[in-house]
């Protein structure tokens, strides 16, 4: 167990156990007073004036400290499995716990709480101060069976106080505890414990449960009189802290009971507010919907995010064909007795197909589709249950069939689709917000982004029907405030900017879109407003709005409860953050309005299928000309020197040529890198093919010399030469087909680059 006592310059302490915060001296008094004192007040001792207390966990001695100063406490037994914590409590923490372990009323049992409960004597007060479980086996005391053991040791008039979870961050898990207590025959009464230190660690508003063998009504908290003074807790607020709205209480009916046989607590802790019931088919005729099933996958590890789970699921779908399906189908057929007859018939057909003995598979039967979908699920789960190190860092394994993650080389918006996981860390919404930085929904800040254009004239110049003079260059810069995606910025004025390259960007507002250069205050040209583009931008801004609303609600809820600690500077910072989130929400609303809807609902494509898309509405043709789709659907064409519209021609404004050059430069870089990655993959596949062919020759030789039933090594298996030959032949076919597909891909990229590279110099000199 990893124990770390953080000793700060201001003299305060914080204890971490295996990386989890146990207490912080800034607010530990609040925690331990709220845990121990209400239960002590409410217990009706079996023997008047002689309260007996058992503490499970709490080896730091702080809950013990509270018990010992309560009148009438005759005996306290503290059960903690960690010698290390108890030693620390007796030593470095002795001053903090008022030397509690030296009190003659205290007995310390170093052992497992589960075992202790089995044979413990009854007590009047049971304090359960365990760490929050991170593994299923650590959830044992929070099962129906665990609570039943607690109930057994509680005297008839006894009261337990149990360290809960966050009703705010993990409501399902929180209500699962309540439901499980109920199932064990314990009456319970939860109340919130708003702790600034827990909040700062992302744990949310915390909670405890009072539990007893007799009903506990909320009003007992209103009438609570505590015979000892408190340092931080204010029990007059306890009644309010125990109020849960009907909509919150309703969750209890929706969550399962946590039992030893069917543990459900951990997935509920790790999947706050995201647990959705798996989509199931409506009837026999409805095929499984893969997307729904995959999005229902749970997060199974504390360091995984929803985004990672979805990326992984997509990768599994891309790589599952790398599994030996023939072998899997054979193994399934060996379990035919357990399977529905229709499925077995379909599996036989599939096996024949996989072994090349059936010409074609007319249509994969419904049952086989189910096999595949369940296979995706089981394999994705297996990967989620094997947490590793590099995954979280954005480096992935085999995408599709090869080693390299493909990066998109379309610079059209949507290329950089947002990956925000809708969890605001808050930093960017703190004191730095709005001071020229750009903040994204996860609270990340980047440096200032300013764009020189005039919002009033941005869509006019060169637009449909415009015959007037060139508008005066803009005088004032517009500031970006929120990054909605890696290439989508929401401006101070509500406009949406899509960055295309160093020197080029789009402005979308009022249902119109224009191309601009960062080097000029005059818009380059208005473009056809593509409804798909507007839909994607609108969806992105709305999604951000949704996340802001959710986070703002969480913070307002928090601020509503933490009144007791308003003296702490962190709470003031939380208040500022909430105000900034509200501001961000208003800006996003404004942006949705300002974005508007394009006049046409028709998305228009490229001028011809051989052209390369530079961005939405901008295409490079094989003849080296760039075509820009105008608002009236006509084309504006330029070779970098001339700008043609219908019959008229003029010199291409140098800033337009430079902007297009900048876009082409970026695209060329992207495609060159992708092509290099593809060549590397091709060379690997070639080497693999050569080895496979050598192996095949060797297997054929062994088979010829010793007969087809002769056993040979195939990887780590030992199989007949005949099988090895057929598997190697299959591997060769597969690898060859992968190679051919990849070669086609490389060819396509080369063709595009062949158009791009000679055209670029005509649009200006290379950027340094």
């Amino acid at each position, binding site marked *: 167990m*990893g124990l*770390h006592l953080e000793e700060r310059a201001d003299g305060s302490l914080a204890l*971490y156990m*295996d*990386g*989890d915060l146990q207490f912080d001296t800034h607010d530990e008094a609040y925690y331990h007073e709220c845990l121990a004192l209400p239960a002590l007040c409410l217990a009706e001792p079996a023997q008047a004036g002689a309260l007996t207390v058992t503490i499970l966990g709490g080896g730091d001695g702080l809950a013990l400290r509270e018990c010992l100063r309560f009148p009438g406490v005759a005996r306290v037994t503290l059960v903690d499995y960690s010698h290390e914590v108890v030693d620390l409590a007796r030593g470095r923490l002795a001053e903090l716990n008022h030397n509690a372990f030296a009190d003659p009323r205290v007995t310390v049992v170093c052992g497992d709480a589960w075992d202790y409960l089995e044979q413990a004597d009854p007590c009047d007060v049971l304090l359960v101060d365990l760490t929050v479980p*991170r*593994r*299923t086996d650590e959830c044992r005391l929070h099962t129906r069976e665990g609570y039943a053991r607690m109930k057994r040791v509680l005297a008839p008039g006894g009261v337990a106080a149990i360290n809960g979870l966050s009703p705010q961050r993990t409501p399902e898990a929180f209500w699962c505890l309540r439901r499980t207590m109920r199932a064990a025959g314990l009456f319970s009464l939860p109340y919130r414990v708003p702790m600034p230190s827990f909040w700062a660690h992302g744990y949310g508003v915390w909670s405890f449960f009072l539990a007893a063998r007799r009903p506990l009504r909320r009003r007992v908290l209103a009438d609570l009189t505590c015979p000892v003074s408190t340092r931080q807790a204010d029990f007059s607020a306890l009644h309010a802290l125990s109020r849960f709205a009907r909509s919150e209480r309703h969750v209890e009916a929706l969550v399962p009971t946590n039992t030893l046989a069917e543990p459900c607590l*951990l997935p509920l802790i790790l999947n706050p507010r995201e647990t959705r019931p798996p989509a199931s088919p409506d009837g026999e005729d409805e095929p499984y919907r893969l997307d729904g099933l995959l999005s229902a996958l*749970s997060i*199974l590890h504390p*360091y995984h995010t929803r985004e990672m789970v979805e990326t992984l699921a997509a990768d*599994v779908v891309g*790589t599952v064909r*790398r599994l*030996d399906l023939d072998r899997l189908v054979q193994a*399934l057929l*060996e*379990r035919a007795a*357990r*399977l*529905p007859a229709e*499925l077995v018939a379909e599996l036989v057909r599939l096996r024949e197909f996989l072994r090349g003995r059936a010409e074609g598979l007319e249509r994969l039967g419904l049952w086989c589709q*189910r096999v595949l979908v*369940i*296979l995706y699920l*089981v394999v994705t*789960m*297996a*990967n989620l*249950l*094997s947490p*590793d*190190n*590099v995954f979280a*860092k954005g*480096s*992935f*394994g085999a995408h599709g069939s090869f*080693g*390299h993650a493909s*990066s*998109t080389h379309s610079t059209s918006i949507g290329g*950089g689709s947002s990956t925000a996981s809708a969890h605001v860390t808050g*930093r*960017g919404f703190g004191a730095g917000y709005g001071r020229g930085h750009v903040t994204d929904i996860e609270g*990340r*800040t980047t440096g200032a982004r300013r764009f020189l254009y005039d919002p009033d004239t941005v869509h006019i110049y060169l637009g449909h029907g415009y015959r007037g003079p060139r508008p005066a260059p803009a005088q004032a810069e517009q500031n970006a405030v929120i990054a909605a995606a890696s290439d989508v910025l929401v401006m101070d004025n509500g406009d949406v900017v899509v960055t295309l390259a160093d020197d080029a960007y789009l402005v979308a507002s009022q249902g119109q879109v224009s191309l601009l250069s960062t080097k000029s205050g005059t818009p380059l040209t208005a473009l056809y407003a593509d409804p798909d583009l507007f839909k994607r931008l609108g969806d992105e801004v709305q999604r951000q709005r949704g996340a802001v609303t959710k986070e703002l609600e969480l913070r307002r809820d928090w601020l509503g409860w933490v009144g007791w600690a308003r003296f702490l500077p962190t709470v003031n910072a939380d208040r500022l953050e909430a105000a900034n989130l509200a501001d961000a929400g208003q800006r996003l609303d404004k942006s949705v309005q300002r974005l508007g809807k394009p006049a046409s609902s028709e998305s228009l494509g490229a001028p011809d299928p051989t052209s390369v898309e530079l961005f939405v509405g901008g295409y490079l043709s094989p003849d080296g000309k760039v075509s820009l789709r105008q608002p009236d659907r006509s084309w504006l064409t330029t070779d970098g020197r001339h700008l043609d519209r219908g019959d008229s021609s003029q010199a291409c404004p140098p800033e337009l040529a430079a902007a297009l050059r900048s876009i082409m430069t970026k695209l060329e*870089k992207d495609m060159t*890198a992708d092509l290099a*990655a593809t060549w*590397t993959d091709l060379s*690997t*596949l070639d*080497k*693999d093919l050569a080895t496979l062919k050598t192996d095949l020759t060797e297997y054929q030789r062994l088979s010829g010399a010793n007969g087809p039933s002769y056993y040979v090594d195939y*990887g*780590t*298996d030992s199989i007949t030469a005949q099988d090895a030959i057929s598997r190697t032949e299959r591997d060769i076919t597969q690898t060859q087909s992968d190679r051919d597909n990849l070669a086609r891909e490389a060819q396509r990229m080369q063709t595009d680059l062949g158009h791009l590279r000679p055209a670029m110099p005509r649009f200006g000199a290379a950027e340094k």
Partner: protein
Amino acid sequence: MTVPPAVPLGPEWDEPWDAFAGAAYESGFMQSSAWAAFKRAEGFDTHRYGLFDDDGGLWGGALLLSWPAEEGEGFVVCPEGPVLPWYDTERARAGLRSLLAVVRDHVSTRGGLGLRIEPHLPAPAPSLLRGWSRAPVDLTPEHTVMIDLTRDDDTLLAAMHPKFRYNLRLAQRRGVTIVRSTDLADMRRFHTIFDDTAGRQGFFGEPYGFFLNLGATLFPRDRACLYFARAQDRDLAAILVVTFGRRATYLYGGSLAADRGLMPNHLLQWTALRDARAAGCREYDLYGYDPFGRPDHLFAGISRFKRQFGADNWSRMGAYDCVFYDRLADRLAERLAGR
């Protein structure tokens, strides 16, 4: 070749195992005893097995990790391993078979769908792994930059990009100093810098608790060190370097947005890699790189920095799975029959 049984290696084997695994080119720190301790603190189960010849000489083995979960079955993973004589195919095959036998035994009671391995071998995977499948995720970065530490300062510097040398001198001239620490109390400062960087760069940053566990297990075993770049009593940047056997690895790092003009990162890396060489390491792994220069790649920024070291790109075959098809079929049959 007959299959020698893989023997469980208890804590008394920490030192000899580390000496053995640390010397293997295809292995790395994730096979070390210290890493096992770290993974245990993070909630994993760890198992270590050795392969011995008739004279009792250790010639192979593996540190295996599994995540105890009752929600389903995962893979037993062997990052940067197993440690085997990969270029002696028959011996490696025999070793891999014995390790598979213990993994099969393990999953029969604890659950699991197979074994995932990732020795550092070049692509394509050797024939020895026929019938295994490429994993959808890797355990360590597929591409990295590896600096050869068997050279002296002048040779190292001469190989570097002129900009690296310039920035190195710049940092020194502007009074940037490097402070080393293996004190867990400094982890808070490190995490503040790391977290700020993660936020800025848009990658997932592990929580403070993760780093506490990392420091608590690696520092006392002398396997990791923090380096802080400071100027005028302020932290500018920091890195965490893991050292194991022949290799040092720059695993985590970050810099604060202000004062980046002081170029603390070059001096930090330079100090750490010279330390690694002094400690007897032969390579310094910059851990993660995009060799193709893709502008939108998550590693794009850091790759530009790493390119300045003038060292070679190292590409690896990635992680491979030996799927236990019988167990996978059991799970599928259960789910299908359950409908």
